[in-house]
Every structure is written in C-alpha cells, then in structure tokens.
C-alpha cells in the first residue's frame, strides 16, 4: 500500500521528466543528427526565447491569469532596444530599454486586469493588438538592420556556452526561487487557487497580480533583446504567436489552467519537449503543416491529461468531488 502511494506520487511528480527523457532517447535513436553538439546548441538557442516567455506565463497561470500579448510586447521591446542601441551604442542601455518597455506594457496589463477587473484573456488581447501597432508605427513597418555588436546576446558565447542559455538558466533559477522560496510565490498559488479566500487570509491580491505582470514584463523585455539579437534585425513583425508556444510549454509542463498548480521545472521540461519535437520533425523533414497538427494534438493531450489526473486526485480523496465545470456535478461533504 505504502509503496503504491510512493509510486503514484512519484509518477505524478516526475512523469513529465520521464516523458522528456524518453523523447530525448527516441530522438537520439531515430536521427543521427539529433545528438550532435551543434544541433543541441541550436535547439537551446531557439528555445531560450520561448522558454523565458513560458516562465512568465507559468507565474501568471498559477495565479489564475495569462498573457496573450507576449509576442507583440516582445517585438515592441525588441525594436525599442535595437533602436536605443543604434542611437547610443550602449548594450546596457539597449537591454534596459527593452526591459522597461516590457514592464510598462505589463503594468498596463495589470491595471486592466487587477484594478479594472478585466478578464486577463481580453485585456492582454487588447495589449497584443496595441503593442504590435506601436511597434509597426515606430518603425514605419520597416525592419531595423545593421545591428553591429547587438548580436552578441543572441549569437555570442561565453566560452562554449551560448549567451541565450546563460539567460535561460538564470531566469529558470529565478523562477524556481520565486515560486518556491518567496512569500510572493506562495501567494501566487493561493490567489490562483482561490482568490477570495486569499483576500480573506490577508494576501494583498493587487500587489501579487501587479508583481506577476511586472516580472512577466522583465522576461518579455529580455526575450525581445535575445530574439532581435539572434535574428540580427529589429523585426516589428517578429515573434507572432510566441505566446502560444509559451502557453503550450507551460501546460505540457503541468501548469493547470484552473490555477494554483505549476512548477518552474515542469515548464522547463514542457518547453524542451516542444523543442525536441519541433527539432526532430525538422530533421526528419516533416511537412511544416503537418508539424502544426502534431503540436496542436500535443496541447490537447496535455490538457486532457491534466483534467484526468485532477479528477483522479479529487475522486481518490475519500469521495470529495469539487468540480465547478460540470453543471450536474455531485458534491459531497
């Protein structure tokens, strides 16, 4: 009995990493180009941007929100950073401008969501449209070229480690630390799990929501710098739909859309699962339309898995069922 319990908790906790491991193993076997240093570095460079975004989404989803504006705000931060670099020649200023842009946009998100109680879905959808508009207006729809030294963030390496990976690792650790070791992190889970009870327990819910968006803004701003630097251009039309890749990674990583559940490690694993799959499909020259279908199917599977495991959790718990989704749900004491 006890052993069974230990096994089932382990299964619940680590299943995502087993999937990642198995996928890695299979990819290595079916394509000889997969397990080469070159390819793996490449994957990581590409993944850095969306994974950083996914950490932002993770914090937001845990607290019952989300951000659809990530791709647009990323583009806006990116082109601002690029043009700041072009006019000042300072990498530091460029990065700061990128971060500040991301933060400002996300404070606007937070004002809409927290102060005016707009549903995050709609509020960030509005920001998605606005930020893209500002980016296009600012650049007059033209790509900014000749970035010079700016490419160091996306293309450079420190020794053998690509700089995007360093950023990714720092942000991963930061996210883990925030979620695990800070009052703010604990509050995120509480707010997403039951906002009213959090208020009644003395949690400053406004502060939690604003902070979550601001951190998301920092991540998005940094991602903007990395992205533009990697492609060596300021693309006002770039990174369209990146928020969905980020959401996918978070969901596959076990972050629950009902709020209150999710981990940094899970999201990291989720992002790499998506990245490995994309990569192996590219290496095997799978049709790009086909790739979309596969990606969609994976999201569907991840969500179904989440819901099923949640139902099992609640059912196994001495017969308490608490499921608001089902209209004829059965409630017991």
């Amino acid at each position, binding site marked *: *009995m006890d052993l*069974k*319990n230990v096994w*089932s908790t382990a299964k619940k906790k680590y299943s995502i990493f087993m999937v990642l491991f198995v996928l890695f193993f299979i990819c290595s076997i079916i394509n000889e180009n997969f397990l080469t240093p070159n390819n793996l570095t490449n994957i990581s460079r590409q993944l850095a941007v969306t994974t950083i975004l996914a950490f932002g989404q993770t914090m937001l989803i845990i607290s019952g929100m989300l951000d659809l504006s990530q791709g647009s705000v990323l583009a806006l931060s990116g082109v601002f950073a690029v043009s700041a670099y072009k006019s000042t020649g300072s990498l530091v200023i460029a990065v700061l401008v990128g971060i500040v842009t991301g933060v400002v946009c996300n404070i606007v998100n937070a004002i809409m969501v927290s102060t005016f109680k707009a549903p995050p879905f709609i509020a960030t959808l509005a920001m998605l449209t606005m930020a893209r508009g500002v980016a296009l207006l600012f650049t007059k729809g033209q790509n900014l070229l000749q970035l010079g030294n700016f490419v160091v963030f996306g293309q450079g390496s420190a020794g053998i480690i690509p700089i995007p990976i360093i950023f990714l690792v720092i942000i991963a650790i930061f996210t883990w630390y925030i979620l*695990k*070791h*800070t*009052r703010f992190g*604990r*509050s995120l*889970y*509480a707010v997403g*799990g*039951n906002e*009213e*009870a*959090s*208020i*009644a*327990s*003395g*949690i*400053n819910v406004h502060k939690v929501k604003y902070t979550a968006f601001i951190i998301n803004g920092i991540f998005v701003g940094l991602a903007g710098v990395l992205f533009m630097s990697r492609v060596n251009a300021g693309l006002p039309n770039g990174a369209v739909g990146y928020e969905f890749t980020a959401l996918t990674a978070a969901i596959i990583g076990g972050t*629950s859309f*009902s*709020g*209150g*559940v999710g981990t940094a490690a899970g999201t990291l694993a989720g992002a790499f699962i998506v990245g490995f799959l994309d990569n192996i499909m590219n290496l095997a020259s799978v049709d790009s339309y086909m790739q979309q279908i596969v990606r969609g199917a994976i999201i569907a599977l991840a969500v179904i898995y989440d819901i099923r495991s949640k139902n099992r*959790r*609640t*059912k*196994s*718990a*001495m*017969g*308490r069922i*608490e499921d608001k989704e089902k*209209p*004829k*749900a*059965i*409630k*017991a*004491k």
Partner: protein
Amino acid sequence: MNQNIKLRVSQIEKSFPGVKALDKIDFTVKKGSVHVLCGENGAGKSTLMKIINGVYQPDGGQIFIDEKPVKISNPIQARSLGISMIFQEMNYVPEMTVEENIFLGNLPVGKLGNVDWKEVRRRTNELLKKENLPYSPTTLLKDLTVSDIQMLEIIKAVSYNSDIIIMDEPTSAITLKEVEKLFAKIRELKARGVSIIYISHKLDEIFQIADEITVFRDGTVVESHPREELDIEQVIALMVGRKLTNTYPKEEVKIGEDILRVENLNNGNVYHDVNFHLKKGEIIGFAGLMGAGRTEVMRSLFGLDPITDGKVTIKGKEVKIKNVRQSIENGLVMLSEDRRRYGIIPVRSVKENTTLSFLQKVFYRFRLHHKTEKNIVSDMFSKMKVKTPSLETTIQSLSGGNQQKVVLAKWMIRNPDILILDEPTRGIDVGAKFEIYKLMTNLAQEGKAVIMVSSELPELIGMCDRIYVMCKGTITGEISRKDFSQELIMKYATGTLISNEVN
C-alpha cells in the same frame, strides 16, 4: 415482513487509496419510512449514498431493491430504478427557469429531435399544481430561495417516480420555518409509500422526522434502531464512540477590560447604528434571523467590506480598518461562514493553507524554512486534533470538520486577540463541534475574546457570556447569560421586542 423492505444493502465494501471508506455495511430501508443516517464527517454515510446512487461502484457486496439484486452503474440507472438523490449543496443555473430545471437532462423531444416545450409547460404546471407550489414555470431559479429550490429538487425526484429519495443535509442552509415545510413534504411523501434516506447532523431534527436511525462510525454501521429506542444522548455517544459528558465545555473565566468597542457603525443600508463591546476573556454571541446583518457587520470589522461611518476601538486604540491585513495586524481575525469561498485554497496542501495567514513566519532571510513550517503546522494540528493523512495532502480531500479545523489553525498560528467565528459549526459533526467549542473556551481562558455568530440558539446559549441580537440591520437586544432563553432571543430577533439597555 420482508415485502416491507424497499432497499437492502449487504456486506458493501469500498476502499479509496489509503482509506477503507466502508467495511461490510449491512443496512435496510423499509417502504414508506424515513431512515436517518448519522455519524461524524468521514464516517462513510456519503460514500454509501453515492454507491446507492451509482456514483461509485462498491468493491464488494450487493444491493437489493424490493429484495431483487441490482447493479447500479451510474446515477441515470439509479434514477430508472426509482432512486433520486438531493444533494447537500445544490448545483443549479441561476438563469434557468423552473421548467427547464425540472426537465434538465430529461427534456421530452418531438419527432425531429426538437424539444417539445408545450409538453414541458403542461407537465410542469401539472406538477406544480399537484405539489401546491405557488410559482410559475417561467420563474428564474435566481429569484427563488434556497428552500424553494430544494422543493423543486424534491418535485424533480417525484417526477421521476422515485420511490427512494436520498437527502443529504437538506436543512443546512434553510430557515426554521422552511424546515417545517420540508418536513411536511417528507411526511406526505412517506404517506405515499416513498422511502426516504435522510442524512443530517442536526440531532434535534432527526428526532422529529426519523422512523429509524442508523449510526455510522469509521466506515461501519455502529447500530441501527427504531427512533423510540434512542435518545439524543445515546446517538451522540454512538457517533463519537464515547460519552460526551458536556456538550458545551463552557467554563468560568475572569473577565477583563474592553478589548473591542464598536460605536455607531454604519454601512449604507446594510446595517446601521451598531454598538457593542467585547471584553477580554469573554465569548459573545450574535443571534438573529438570516439577513439581519450579523455577517455584514463582522465582514466590515474584518476589512472585507467597507464601513461608511462609525468608530472601532481595539485595545483602547481607535483603528481604521480598510483591509484584512490591517485587522490581522490589530489581532482581529475571522472565520467566515462560507468555508469553500473564503476559507480554503482547495488545490493546495493543508500545510500551505495553514501558514497562508502568516507567511513572514516561514519565509524570511530570503528563503522558505521547510522545517519551521512543518513544525509550526504539525504542532498546531496536534493541538487542534486535525486528522490528515499528511501535511502535503490537499485540503479539499479532508472532511468538512477537518477542513474547518485547518482554517481555524490558520488563524491560531497568528495568536489573535479577537476571534470572530461566523457559523463555525455549520455542517460539521459533533466531534469537531466539540473541539471548536473547546478551543473557544481555551482562548477565553488565555484572556482572548471570541465573537460567535450563529443561527443555532442552543450553541449560543451554551457557549456565550452575553448575546447581542440583531434585527433588520441593527442590534435590538443585549442579553446576559443569566437571562438567556430561546424565547427572549427570538423576540428580539423578530423585532417584537426592542431593549432599552442597548447603549
């Protein structure tokens, strides 16, 4: 004799991971009788009812209806066998009409698969008329009271021609008068030959309505008797497995100076001119009918709702409470009447739920202190006798009584000076109730002060030093312990008597 048995379960067993929920249950219900199930939370009553209703499958044993073995694999099948269940907490769509609700999931359809609304209307009218209910088929459910909706649920059960109706805590959210209405209905159904299984914690009610009483404890049937053979004391003793010598562990405590003083508190037209005070070591009660404004006053004091006007003094210092954090800092905390909504974070662990009120205590010097957190929580849990498989268990998996204790533990780790308890014992079992009373007494002895808002007069009378009675948004009476009586409280609560003593 045997034709008289409507439902019989034999040797039913059910386990959940880590728990044996039911152990070889034998249980029979006679035709046209009311069979009451009682037992502490988690004793297995609800699990058994869910098995009878087809929500769960038993691991072993057999169910017989009219002495014929049946297998019930889902609630729809249960319905076709004549079994209906009315849940403790009803789920309904507020924007739905009465007729839609009655035929939900069972709408009559025409040849083309279109809903036959005429038929729906005709049958609804017929049912409403037959049951003597005064509302129209097109009334929206949000315009009905809880008890009306409950009646509807019963009608729904009747409309399926159910001859076994299971009611899980049907009176937990309705007023005394509505309870009478419900009981009249139950008696009527009984006369028609319907068998009713009735789960309740309210022992006085049980004795009004029961023909037979079965007591559950720890997944087994302790004893089953006709009502005449039992009295309340015996039932309580059977439920908890020991004799509770004293239902209300009230003790004499030295009363100190004022700790809380509320003067001319107003909030729009929710409540007005509320004046009261609370002394160290005191337990005061707030009585009144539903909607009298008791909860609203407490919510304002706790910072959940605004105060438009008035003065609040805590420990001699005037305070302006704008949010919950401020009231917590002033040593005032509140246990809400709606545990699911304001009390618990369902998906998080009992540990996290407990320390939520005092994160500074476990997050400091830039990290989470696991051991400190574990110690704080397990100390508090053993003090309060919280039963949980582990500290990592999600709070939603505990029974109601244990959830309530965890929510209380959340406040106890803050060591508050003033504890407001809003309906602290609603829907929880006798054992857990006793623990909560005990805690109140202990706090009073430590020189803290407690405010208890309750709709159950016996517990107010049993536990309080003074009782304030509210009616229509203001305090209409203050009664001290020596003058306590249910009649006096009800007079103030209904506004037929207004005291001059109230300052």
